[in-house]
């Protein structure tokens, strides 16, 4: 069993043009910084990216938009990004907007082998167009399909050589869900430890879901909205 890769470039080397990728993170929190940088270096194109957000102009998925590597974004919220807006309006970029909970649940469905799930989110809205509606106990639900992604790129706090992952605070967000959902899951971690170093009761993502793991470097962890209160 050899899951450990030396770095991001090796871990993503077989991602080809046209692939569908999931990228963990919420805003700029918990995003796979090293993986994104390696994708930019690789020059791979025509990617479909499933990610709650699309980064900002000069960070996160925004970096892959600048290099025009993204064909389509599947997200719940794509503000804070001028280049994104430009590509969208010019027709260079396709966008599918779906509710945040639906995005999360469609990832979980893939990881749990459930082909479809029911959610009331979007009933009566344009999100419902073309989707099957079912009524349970008098309430309407949309049938939403599990995602089918070639690769998932996730970021964890710690991971071990078997691929077990632990996340920190709200950097967890979509990461464990996408880790479960990728056909090939690539995890980058701040600290890679030997198997046996993590408490088995406190692992968020079991290694069975993780195919490749590497220790990332130079995490910038940019803050999008720095809100503070003054010290007394």
């Amino acid at each position, binding site marked *: 069993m050899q899951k450990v890769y030396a770095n991001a470039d090796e871990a993503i080397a077989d991602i080809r043009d046209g692939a569908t990728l999931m990228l963990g993170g*919420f*805003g*700029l*929190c*918990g995003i796979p910084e090293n993986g994104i940088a390696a994708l930019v270096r690789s020059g791979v194109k025509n990617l479909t990216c499933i990610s*709650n957000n699309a980064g900002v102009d000069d960070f996160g998925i925004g970096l892959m938009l600048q290099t025009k590597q993204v064909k389509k974004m599947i*997200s*719940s*919220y*794509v*503000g804070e990004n001028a280049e994104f*807006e430009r590509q*969208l*309006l010019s027709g260079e970029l396709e966008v599918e*907007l779906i*509710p*945040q*909970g*639906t*995005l*999360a*649940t469609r*990832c*979980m469905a893939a990881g749990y082998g459930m082909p479809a799930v029911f*959610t*009331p*989110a*979007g*009933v*009566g*809205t*344009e*999100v419902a167009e073309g989707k099957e509606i079912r009524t349970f106990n008098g309430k309407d639900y949309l049938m939403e399909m599990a995602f089918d992604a070639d690769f998932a790129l996730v970021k964890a*706090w710690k991971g071990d050589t078997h691929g077990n992952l632990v*996340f*920190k*605070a*709200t*950097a*967890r*967000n*979509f*990461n*464990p*869900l996408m880790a479960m959902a990728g056909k090939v899951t690539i995890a980058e971690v701040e600290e890679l430890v030997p198997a046996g170093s993590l408490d088995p009761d406190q692992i*968020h993502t079991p290694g069975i879901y993780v195919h490749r793991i590497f220790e990332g470097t130079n995490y910038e*962890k*940019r*803050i*999008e*909205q*720095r*809100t*503070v*209160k*003054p*010290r007394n």
Partner: protein
Amino acid sequence: MLTKEQIAQRIAKELKDGMYVNLGIGIPTLVANYIPEGMTITLQSENGLLGMGPFPFEGDEDPDLINAGKQTITTIPGSVFFDSAMSFGMIRAGKVDLTVLGAMEVADNGDIANWKIPGKMVKGMGGAMDLVASAKNIIVAMQHTSRDGTSKLLKACTLPITGLQCVTKVVSNLGVFDIQAEGFVLRERAPGISVNEIVAATDGRLVVPNEVPEMQF
């Protein structure tokens, strides 16, 4: 006419001890400033946190700890983190007692529009559609009219819908309204605002009870 702060303050009166509450971006966030002393209210942030604390002291910001508005925040004793599927799972299962949201339009049957303006860049619905479709108790904090005086409390929403028949209460700068089968039921007037002014500013069906007390703070 209520200020934004006063709208938040009025909504805070709806809180009850032990409630789990999700506060949307904008005026709803301000509600946290008016939680009565001694009351335990647990704030949910839909990116994956129960027990949201205040902003950190300068220098204590943790980039791994943000709320659904992407602001740096803190935890409090009893906080818990989870993934986004569980977060929306608990919302969908009706475990969040109260959701407070902003809106661009609300209809007299409880429909809400708050995510998209045709012709403007669409940023996305985020978690808004999940919240309005699932929460059992939704209070909308909003301006009663647009700047040109057009009512935002309507017979039917004109903007793209976020959710159907879901809003239970509206607190606007003019008053407090329950949404019931008959439409907007006026419960309280903002200080100095007359019933007639509210009637004039409301496009949707409005029920005016015999007694409409002025709001107390």
